[in-house]
């Protein structure tokens, strides 16, 4: 039994931003969070890669606009790498 992506991703956000009050919603983006600068963004992507055991390409992450798109991207990557889930 695996946790839903949203739940794991929320914990990643808590970990990266050191803030356990963050609640994810699809339209959340860097504009809404002052701590979400370019360095933190990289740390966020690296942590997601580690937690979900996936690798992003620069093109994929370059197009991301908000959390909703991030979740779809993770979804597409995790479902293609493990067909049974």
């Amino acid at each position, binding site marked *: 039994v695996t946790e839903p992506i949203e739940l794991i991703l929320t914990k990643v956000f808590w970990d990266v931003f050191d803030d356990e009050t963050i609640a994810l919603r699809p339209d959340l983006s860097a504009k809404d969070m002052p701590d979400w600068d370019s*360095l933190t963004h990289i740390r966020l992507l690296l942590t997601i890669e580690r937690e979900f055991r996936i690798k*992003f390409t620069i093109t994929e992450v370059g197009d991301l606009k908000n959390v909703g798109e991030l979740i779809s991207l993770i979804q597409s990557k995790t479902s293609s790498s493990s067909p049974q889930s």
Partner: protein
Amino acid sequence: MSSLYSDLSWLPRPPADFSALCRSVLDRPEALGDRIKALASYALDQNQLVRLSKIIVRAQGASESLAPLTPYRLGVISNSTSDFLATALVATAARHAIALECVVGAYDQAVQESLNPDSAIHRSKPNAVLIALDWRGLPVRFSPGRRGEAESTVRVVLDHLNLIRNGIQRHTPALCIFQNLAAPPETLFGSLDRTVPGSPRDIVDSVNRAIAEEVWTSGGALLDVAGIAETVGLANWHSPSEWNMAKLPFSQEFLPLYADHVCRLIAAHCGKSRRCLVLDLDNTLWGGVIGDDGLKGIRMAQGDPAGEAYLELQRYALSLRDRGIVLAVCSKNEDENARAPFRHHPDMLLREEHFAVFQANWSDKATNIQAIADELALGLESLVFVDDNPFERTLVRKTLPQVAVPELPADPALYARTLSAAGYFEAGAFSEEDLKRASYYDNNARRAVLQKQVGDLNEYLASLKMEIVFQPFDERGRARITQLINKSNQFNLTTRRYSEVEVARIETDPSCFAMQVRLTDTFGDNGMISVVICRAPSREEWEIDTWLMSCRVLARCVESMVLRELLQHARGRNIRKLIGVYRPTDRNKLVEQHYPKLGFALTEQLPDGSTIWHLDVDAAEIDPAPMTVRSLFS
């Protein structure tokens, strides 16, 4: 296997409330440095390092005292994104007792930063400057097949590094830390790269040799990035995607490892390298328990794979001693038993003369390690303690936090590698004197005198959340009961051996009362750790025919809890008197004073040395110890 390195597996995992601990650490100023060092001493990942570094930077900004951490300022010159590196270094340095400030030079401006007296690096007056350049940041040009060009490339690279070094040293006396190059995994010809002058492999090898010679002859320090990268694998180390995404010089999976290596080096240059390796014996230097299994039963023989695994650690300890590390023993054992393998076992690599101090007794290990430090006139922060038993490791970490205590993997074949990966003995230099250091100490394996007990054992025991489970003999436990009865030698009052058939008979014999005892704690299930058999010579008396216990759970008040339980059953059956017997063997001196310690009175001494002890059941009172009791008697 690379996870040993990327996860810093020799360090304990951080607790679940690590974030909360970080947040609250600044709430009070007392012992702030020590408390921050304690937080840094877990195996922290990148995000945890960021969290801790923020706390440290805040404390430094508020001019809070971080003593006893040594203040140190490090400049970083780099051709890649070094922001992550700086935060990782600040947090990691605390693990090595350093309060680090990190000053990062402008991105990809190594030469300008070093030459300009007004650069951020120079203005900060650093103690050291890390020149963190990889092959992309140096004038490295590959010229396969053109030897002359290859040689000139090596010269040009070295000139470039010297230009930076001279620039730095013109303005400050800072230590220059050079990095060598991790070869990119991409080859041109394949195996032939190694033989063709000017190929990537050839250039990297030649440059690395030249950098090493330069550091050796004209001073400075070398951070062996090539060695780190080769250890974890070049293809793991180099991440083209991460370079592409954010100009990260290597896979950030290894950032905690890289930072630890930099901080070890700095700590070594601050004189903080450790000097003494303290070793446990049973199941650390050999397989098995010498006091129970005997000289023929312990495993370390050549040709026995399980035994040979232990020889790896012996071999490594011996080679550390050859380079000047002092060795000591700290073991819960009878002194004579503990020394026997060193004297008589043909396969032992370590011998008594390799040890300065040899502590084998039944006192707690923290007190013994303090005695070793005192005897050698070394600070506790010079000591490393290796023990397979998590109970002892945690006790020593809690009681003597200055002592380094690595976590060990399940497989003893990896003990030596884990100890090496932890880098406790990192050296800034190596001289003839170092070579002889271990022999300066009298290596006479002497016993150090114990001073008063250090730390609060009861508090530690309470933190273990022990649960003791008592139950009658049963079929499921029979094999293990029989095994314990036939193999326990040390904590065994009478050393009576019974077969499985006899044990089965005791289960149903109405004149017998028998218990099997289990213990669990925060480290896990210790399994069956004690067996007691009583026989009734009269209607109101129980004679304790057998009482044995595993030495792994010594000094945890298990004996008194066993007696408490025994007294309850005795009272329930109108037994008035317990009769204890101690029958001496050459192995069980440990329990000579077992009965008087529990309040029994001596009534008889037999010619064979046996002693008989009595306890009045109604009058006996045993204080409860900090553990939960579960009794499965119906």
